[in-house]
């Protein structure tokens, strides 16, 4: 089960209404390497991964939901005061006619989220390598969004999220080593 805490993992401030930037950020909301994909990937893989690394998948998967909430807060704050005309200028007209001011799980190009973004191979090493790759792709995406953004307040929060991907990648690499060690120990005896 999960327990909700009524706070973001890290503060989210935006300097001004900026629907264009919100459109880019949607990539990390419902895109292939986004936070929803990350959370669902790890929490699903944890059932069949060896006990030694279940905790890690569980806890990183849980943290990804906190990141998803931060991205949602960013998108919400960047668009809440926008007029339909400003949304149109930002390339969000198609989004607006379908969803109004609501958020939707899609990527920046408005392709809806799909489970085909994530894999569960039932092979611990294959799954963990996918997870490491996912973290590195998410880190790169954050960098590209930061490059496109001149909102200093927002960039502070985005840098926080980028750093988290680096830590997650590191922990997943350690998990691979733990499993390799265990495998080698079994071979000896």
């Amino acid at each position, binding site marked *: 089960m999960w*327990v*909700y*805490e*009524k*706070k*973001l*993992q*890290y*503060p*989210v401030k935006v300097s001004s209404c900026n629907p264009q930037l919100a459109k880019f950020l949607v990539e990390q909301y419902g895109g292939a390497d986004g936070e929803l994909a990350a959370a669902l990937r790890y929490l699903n893989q944890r059932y069949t991964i060896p006990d030694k*690394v279940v*905790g*890690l998948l569980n*806890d*990183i998967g849980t*943290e990804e939901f906190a990141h998803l*909430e931060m991205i*949602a*807060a960013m998108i*919400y*704050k960047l668009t809440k005061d926008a007029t339909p005309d400003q949304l149109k200028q930002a390339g969000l007209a198609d989004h607006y006619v379908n969803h109004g001011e609501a958020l939707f799980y899609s990527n920046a190009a408005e392709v809806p989220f799909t489970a085909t973004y994530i894999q569960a191979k039932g092979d611990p090493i294959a799954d963990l390598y996918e997870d490491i790759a996912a973290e590195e792709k998410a880190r790169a995406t954050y960098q590209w969004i930061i490059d496109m953004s001149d909102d200093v307040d927002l960039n502070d929060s985005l840098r926080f999220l980028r750093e988290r991907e680096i*830590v*997650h990648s590191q*922990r997943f690499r*350690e*998990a691979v080593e*733990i499993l390799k060690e265990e495998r080698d120990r079994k071979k000896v005896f």
Partner: protein
Amino acid sequence: MPKTLPKEYYSMLEEIQAIDFAITELNLYLDTHPEDQDAYKQLTELSEEKKKLLKPFEQKFGSIRADGIDDHWTWSKAPWPWQV
């Protein structure tokens, strides 16, 4: 949407966020280094510290968790995290 919140709301909340961040970092570290007794000790100390920070914040601004202890129900009242 709530009226503007006092500066204190943000500063007290940021202290809680900072301590929670340290707890999360130690949590993930311990997931792959379960024998590190020093890290575990740090985690338990920070958890105690967090309780001390939560109390005054929740008394002023309402519960962070639905099971938070208050003198009346504040949980489902705004503001929500994306509104502040």
